[in-house]
């Protein structure tokens, strides 16, 4: 029975011990848990495990198939690397949060039904927010609250969608969902929020850069790639995803160019990379879905590596603002080198991991004849090199000398970066190992001379553009600023609307209540006037006047009837 435990539950249960273990033992434990999870995952044959009956439905806690396995493997690698990178952190909160968050993400990937998916979906939100709050700043606190509201909101949509589907189809199985029913649309939106679709994206750029140096590394791996997995499972071949994905690849890179905080630049480029995966899901062919899974795999590694290098800078210097950095390669040469490996990988240089995964998605787009999509993806590829490949290492480690001479990153950080860098190069040089664990059989050659030449031309000329713009002084200088993004809608407009609504409501309320009070007062006054001690109706009338009025009435009666 123990052999059928979900690796996710293993990490969550193991996290309980973290606060009570002494520091050294705790480090061993944090690294041992993902290793044990990996052993569990690799020894189990495909199948459904851990089934429970619940309200007449069968819940499957561990569904192992080709798609969930590849995401499970990379999530466990990410949990290990993230744990190693954060090994020096003394506060237990971060470690517990990271383990539960990783475990919940694994649990969601292995969930065979929508109910258990929902439970783990919400758990990822609640567990991960502590990685942001652990930063301990006012900004982080507020960003964490916004993050939590949006993430939990995504879960609420998922719950509504799954209940609707349950009522409609009588099943909560998590297979292909599609956009046919209202339940499907709700679930699509829930996934879309976590996947940072355009206009639903800004929680990512808002919250991730506010987390701790080590927390962002963990955050970058799970939530969004869980959403990519969920989309691949439930909405493969949904055509609108092609357009959504293409928009995602293109618009964040403009922001990345003018953003000053380098970790926020990385958050924008994370958004852009998700776009490629979403396009793959939308195309939905075997090659495209393989490309999506492969790109999620390589992306988690190089994005973690990039966030690690910036995390090391933040840890040593206290800021990742490009305006404050520069020349750090002199005292942080190893971190610089690892950062460049990550930058080359995300830019999809041949022999680095991004190349062997992204070209699958681009090829899938061309095979299906999506010309305009292909053009956008190509533009985004040049753009990602521009801001992640060049801007990140250049402004942090080179550019003008900031005069800062921080120490090299701590040993555990360096080892974590080294492993991630080796994996990035290893996958780039020997893609067959990655291709072997993809959901479908791979019949694809990334290294054709035509492919390699195209990519090298694209990248070198993109570098040329950067060089020319920089040397001619056209390149926009880095500066302290907040650039308005879609969060302006709720952080500014929303706030103003709320304040405005409140002010108007107060006036309306005053007016309504004032007039009601006046009406009542008038009514009471009238009552008093007519029925009060000296009122008209309370007066005593002489009998004679009544007799007179009766006589008048009778006469009128008589006259009317005679006519």
């Amino acid at each position: 029975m123990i052999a059928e435990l979900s690796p996710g539950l293993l990490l969550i249960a193991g996290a309980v011990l973290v606060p009570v273990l002494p520091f050294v033992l705790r480090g061993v434990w944090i690294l041992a848990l993902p290793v044990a999870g990996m052993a569990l995952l690799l020894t189990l044959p495909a199948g459904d495990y851990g089934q429970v009956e619940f309200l007449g439905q069968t819940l499957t806690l561990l569904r192992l198939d080709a798609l969930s396995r590849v995401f499970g493997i990379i999530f466990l690698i990410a949990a290990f690397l993230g744990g190693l990178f954060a090994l020096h952190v003394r506060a237990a909160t971060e470690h517990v949060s990271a383990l539960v968050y990783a475990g919940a993400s694994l649990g969601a990937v292995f969930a065979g039904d929508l109910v258990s998916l929902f439970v783990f979906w919400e758990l990822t939100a609640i567990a991960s927010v502590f990685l942001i709050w652990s930063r301990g700043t006012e900004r982080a606190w507020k960003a964490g609250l916004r993050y939590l509201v949006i993430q939990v909101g995504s879960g609420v949509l998922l719950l509504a969608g799954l209940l609707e589907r349950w009522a409609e189809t009588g099943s909560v199985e998590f297979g292909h969902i599609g956009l046919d029913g209202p339940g499907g649309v709700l679930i699509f939106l829930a996934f879309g929020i976590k996947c940072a679709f355009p206009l639903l994206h800004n929680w990512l750029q808002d919250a991730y850069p506010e987390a701790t140096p080590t927390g962002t590394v963990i955050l970058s791996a799970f939530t969004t790639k869980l959403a990519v997995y969920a989309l691949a499972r439930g909405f493969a071949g949904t055509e609108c995803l092609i357009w959504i994905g293409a928009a995602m690849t293109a618009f964040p890179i403009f922001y990345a160019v003018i953003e000053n905080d380098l970790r926020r630049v990385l958050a924008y480029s994370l958004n852009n990379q998700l776009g490629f995966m979403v396009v793959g899901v939308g195309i939905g062919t075997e090659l495209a879905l393989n490309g999506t899974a492969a790109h999620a795999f390589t992306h988690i590694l190089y994005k973690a590596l990039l966030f690690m290098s910036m995390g090391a800078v933040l840890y040593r210097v206290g800021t990742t603002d490009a305006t404050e950095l520069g020349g750090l390669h002199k005292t942080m040469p190893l971190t610089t080198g690892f950062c460049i490996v990550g930058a080359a990988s995300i830019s999809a240089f041949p022999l680095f991991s991004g190349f062997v995964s992204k070209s699958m998605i681009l090829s899938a787009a061309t095979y299906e004849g999506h010309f305009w999509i292909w053009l956008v993806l190509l533009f985004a590829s040049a753009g990602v090199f521009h801001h992640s490949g060049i801007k990140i290492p250049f402004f942090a480690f080179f550019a003008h000398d900031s005069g800062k001479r921080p120490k090299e990153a701590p040993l555990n950080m360096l080892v974590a970066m080294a492993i991630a860098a080796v994996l990035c190069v290893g996958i780039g040089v020997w893609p067959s190992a990655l291709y072997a664990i993809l959901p479908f059989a791979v019949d694809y050659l990334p290294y054709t001379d035509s492919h390699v030449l195209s990519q090298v031309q694209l990248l070198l000329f993109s570098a040329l553009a950067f060089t020319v713009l920089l040397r001619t002084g056209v390149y926009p200088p880095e500066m302290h600023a907040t650039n308005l993004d879609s969060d302006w809608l709720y952080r500014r407009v929303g706030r103003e609307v709320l304040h405005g609504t409140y002010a108007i409501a107060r006036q309306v309320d005053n007016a309504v209540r004032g007039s009601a009070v006046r009406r009542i007062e008038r009514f009471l006054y009238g009552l008093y006037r007519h029925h009060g001690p000296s009122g008209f109706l309370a007066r005593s009338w002489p009998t004679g006047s009544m007799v007179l009025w009766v006589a008048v009435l009778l006469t009128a009666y008589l006259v009317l009837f005679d006519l």
Partner: protein
Amino acid sequence: MNDRPHDQKPGWLDRRENVRLIARTLYAACAVVLLLDFVIHRHADFETDATWGFYGIYGFVGSVFLVMAAKQMRRILRRPEDYYDR
């Protein structure tokens, strides 16, 4: 105006001629890969990318457009750093 700590020798990259060397290497590399278009037969998926020099030109123009557009965007979107905290 030298904010470099005095215990530090100027690095290899601090010398102007080395930076120029890097830039020239890049220019040369660009020229080489562009010329390779004559040699390597490209397996084209659309007619556009069979055009000579397409990837180089698209990469360069795309990048310049990206930066110039972002520069214009900044004029509209830029706010003080504490914009949301006020």
